[in-house]
Every structure is written in structure tokens, then in C-alpha cells.
């Protein structure tokens, strides 16, 4: 029976105990530290990181809520992330459309160029941009931050989109053309619905990346303070530790949402039309 034969191949038996323990320990290592952040946000000890906290309080949430500097930093971060994500979606999709199937001389070099901003250390990107802005006597502003962020966000969108483009069956596009649709109609009615979720997923990840970026931002920002820059300041010269704890928890919550959403979007994408060949 063919179905049974397939089953025996797919089910490799029980996993060794050692492997399960090692995998479990690894996952615990990845998750426990964030749980501590959550706990510390409620600690009523405000001078040190004493563990276990002597008592729990909700006071610092109210204190953090009333801090205008935090709200300003948050607003700037969101504006930067929205704009860089938009730019990255546009440029990343174009790149993915061009490179997913075409074979031409220099293709490898170009795809390498797209990964370069994340393959090279962030500090290199940051300092390169800073010295370039200096050379061009460009004042540091909102726009220089966006310029930097969009550069490394392109690759996130590109990666998501290129995977979807590759799964997309070319016969689908040919069928649309054979039925009389022109290139734009095919794009609008066939291509876009198929790649839409992957663009949204890539966009969400790009948003999370930009929202959180600090290494490049310290170089491309002038007086502007994004939320990560605000937080870095607090890490180096703490003013009110409990407020930082509360902001940290808020940031975890805010970034978790787009990531989970991106995951669900790309998971659905496994069943994209034409994927089954």
C-alpha cells in the first residue's frame, strides 16, 4: 500500500531523550530572559536589579505613561518605520520580481548586493552612511534616518517576496496571458493576489526591524531620538530604571504583534495557487 509506505518514511520514530532535553533547554535559554524583564516591570525596587524583587507594584506603568519624552520617541519611531517599510516594499518587490526567475550575467552579484546591508556589520553601514552624509554636508534629520533604515529593510521584503515568486507557477501567468489579459491586468488580478500576503509579511518584518534598529540609527540621527535611542540612553546613563523596565515590556508587546501576524501570513502562503505544480 503506497500510503502506508509513505507514512513509514515520514515518521522517523521517537526522538532520543538527549535531543529532546537539549532542544528544550535551548528554547528555555531563548525565552526565560524576556520573562525576567516582564517580572522586573512590576518590581518596587528602583535602585538595583535585586532578585527576587522585594515587592510588586503597578506604579511604574502610570509613571511611564505620563512621560512625554517616551511618547515623542515612540511617535518618531513609528513614522520612520512606516516610511522605510513603504520604500522597502516598493524596492524589494521590484528586485524580487526581477531576480526570482531571470538568468543573466551579473545576477549573482546583484543578489549579493541586496544581502550586503545585513551581511556586513551594522556599524559599517552606519559609519559609511554617516561619513557620506558628512561629505555631502547633508544635515542629519528624520530623512537621513529613513534613508538608512530603508537600505537594510529592502532585503527583508526581498527575501519574503523572492521565495513566493519562486513558488508561483509560471503557467498561471501564461494562462492569464493566453486568456487575453495584458501584463498589467495579469499583475493586478493574478500576480498581486498571489504575492500580496508575502509582501505584507515582509513589510511587517521590515517594520519590526526598523522600529527596533539602533546600531545604524545612532549614526544617521542628529538630535532626533527614536525609541531605541531613548532606551540606549537609559541603558548607559540610567535615570529611572523602573520606567525603562516598563518601556521594555511595552516594546516586547508591540514588536510581538507584527511578527506573529507575519508568521500567519506566510504560513497561509504555503497553499498559494499553483504551488502544487
Amino acid at each position: 500500500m503506497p500510503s502506508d509506505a509513505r507514512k513509514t518514511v515520514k515518521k522517523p520514530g521517537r526522538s532520543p531523550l538527549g535531543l529532546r532535553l537539549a532542544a528544550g533547554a535551548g528554547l528555555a535559554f531563548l525565552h526565560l530572559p524576556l520573562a525576567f524583564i516582564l517580572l522586573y516591570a512590576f518590581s518596587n525596587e528602583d535602585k538595583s536589579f535585586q532578585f527576587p524583587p522585594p515587592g510588586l507594584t503597578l506604579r511604574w506603568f502610570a509613571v511611564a505613561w505620563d512621560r512625554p519624552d517616551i511618547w515623542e520617541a515612540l511617535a518618531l519611531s513609528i513614522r520612520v518605520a512606516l516610511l522605510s517599510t513603504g520604500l522597502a516594499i516598493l524596492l524589494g518587490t521590484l528586485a524580487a520580481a526581477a531576480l526570482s526567475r531571470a538568468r543573466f550575467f551579473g545576477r549573482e552579484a546583484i543578489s549579493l548586493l541586496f544581502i550586503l546591508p545585513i551581511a556586513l556589520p551594522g556599524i559599517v553601514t552606519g559609519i559609511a552612511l554617516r561619513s557620506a552624509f558628512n561629505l555631502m554636508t547633508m544635515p542629519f534629520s528624520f530623512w537621513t534616518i529613513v534613508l538608512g533604515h530603508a537600505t537594510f529593510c529592502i532585503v527583508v521584503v526581498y527575501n519574503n517576496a523572492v521565495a513566493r515568486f519562486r513558488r508561483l507557477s509560471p503557467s498561471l501567468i501564461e494562462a492569464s496571458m493566453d486568456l487575453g489579459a495584458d501584463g498589467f491586468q495579469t499583475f493586478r488580478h493574478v500576480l498581486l493576489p498571489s504575492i500580496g500576503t508575502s509582501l505584507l509579511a515582509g513589510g511587517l518584518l521590515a517594520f519590526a526591524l526598523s522600529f527596533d534598529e539602533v546600531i545604524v540609527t545612532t549614526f544617521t540621527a542628529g538630535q532626533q531620538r527614536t525609541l531605541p535611542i531613548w532606551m540606549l540612553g537609559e541603558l548607559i546613563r540610567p535615570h529611572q530604571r523602573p520606567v525603562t523596565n516598563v518601556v521594555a515590556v511595552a516594546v516586547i508587546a508591540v514588536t510581538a504583534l507584527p511578527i506573529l501576524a507575519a508568521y500567519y501570513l506566510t504560513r497561509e502562503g504555503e497553499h498559494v495557487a499553483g504551488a502544487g505544480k
Partner: protein
Amino acid sequence: MTAFAPSPSESALRRLSDLLIARPGLLLMLLLTPPLLWLGVVYLGALFALLAQSFFSIDEFSGTIVYQPTLATYAELLAPANLDIIVRTLVVALVVTALAALVAFPIAYYAARYARGKVKALFYVAVMMPLWSSYLVKVYAWKLLLAKEGAVTWLVHAAGLTRLLDLWLAAPLIGGPSLSVSYTGMVLTFLYLWTPFMILPLQASLERVPATLIEASDDLGAAPGQTFRHVILPLAAPGLIAGSIFTFSLTLGDYIVPQIVGPSSLILGQAVYAQQGNAGNVPLAAAFCVAPIAIMVVFLALARRTGALDAL
């Protein structure tokens, strides 16, 4: 049939569309020009401008940049103190990469070979969440975990292992006054930050190892260790390399972790930051950047040869 005649604007669009379909090269060029312009001008332009500056030098008296090509800055880079920084950073990056591979492998292997359905989805989310959650929050978490009065010390004490921790801290190089100002703390923080970047490509390459191959190896009498060494590891190599690109590059370029957790001696990222910031010595900062760029170029070339770039 006249009812279906396209309107003039539609036919113009169609003519354009036909032109693009008839000449795929033109379409490709139109698609590629905007992203290439952006990355070519903004990114590569900035990168080359930076590298060019490494061939200038700084006037020791006025502190201004002398725009005359010279190798003096590179000579300065090779001074023992600076060479020390590069070597120290490389060692840290190597240790972090090796440890990340160790932590990542069981997770990736379990997820690729044993996890199915819901469990598999859970594993994926469990790796994605820490990978994408805020970098600074994660660094901060380790600062408070490793603090002298923090949770790690408390846990060690509760487990009755305080003496062991004291011995560890007393050890040269890896030790220090407390975990939060030692290399141990710094490596732990880096490990925590970059392990998810190792898991994902590793898992992707392990997924492509056919289960039948492992069974065949078993059937032919190989011990689990032999199967691991001769079948699984070679096939997982592209994933390992792709993961190492991340762990290496991220460690080389970080100047925030060592500032917050770790000893006072600088590592590369901090040196670059200090040179361009307070010292105002952009040429030396640029020369410092050449080291990680060179390392990453070698790495990427290696990765391309093994097909690891597709696993990124």
C-alpha cells in the same frame, strides 16, 4: 465586436505591456533600476566613500583630516594595541559562533526531523519571537540577569554553586569582578542574541536532508555518531555557514553589547565607534571597518561556493 474595442488609454497600456513582454530585457531593466539605484548610490556609494577615507590620515596637531593618499592609517591599524582589538574580537566572534551552533543544532534538528504539525509551528514561532523581539530589550534583560544582585547570582546561590561561580570569576580572561563586566557575560549575551539567527538557516538545511538517507546510514550499520559526522553534518554545512555569517557579522559590528555587558577593554565595534566619535579620526575608523568587511567578503565567497546563500 466593436463593443469590446479597448478605449485609447487602455490600448496604450496594452501596447506598453506588449512591448515589455516582447522585450524581457527592457522589463528586467525597468524592474531593477530603482532598487539598484538605491543600493548602488546610497549604500555602495557610502561604503566606497568610507573606504576611500581610510587612505587619508589625520593631522596629529590640528586633528583635521589630510586629504592626501597615504598608508599611514593602515600602519596605525597594525599597531599592537589595535591589532589586539581585532584579534580579541575575532576570538569572541569565533567562540560565540561555535556556542551558537551547539545550542542551535538540537533545536534545529528536532524541529526539522521530529516536530510535525502544531509542534513544528510552535518551534518556528518559538525561534522567530526571540529573533525579532527588540535587540535593546534583550541586551537589557542580560544586564539585569547578570547584575551582581541579579537573578543568575541568586539562582547559582540557590543551587549551592556559589563557590563554582566564584572560581569561574577568579579565572583569568573569562572572569572579572562580576558576570556583568566579564567576557563570560559578554559572550553569553551575544550567544543569546544571535542563536536564533543560527537556528533558522540550520533548520532550513536540515529539512532538506532526506530521512531515508539517515535510515540508510543506520541500516548500513553506522553508529549514530558516524551518521552524524558523515551524513548529517556535511549536508547541514550550508546552513551552518549561513548561520555563521550572521553570528560573525553581528558580533563584529556590535558596539552596544560590550558597552553595557563586558570588560573595559574595547572590541572592534567600540573601537570604530570611539574613533569616529570622540576621537574624530574617521580615517582610522574606516581602516578598522576594512577588517570586518574583508572577513565577511571571504565568508560570503565561501558561502557562495557551498550554496549557503540560498539558505540565508
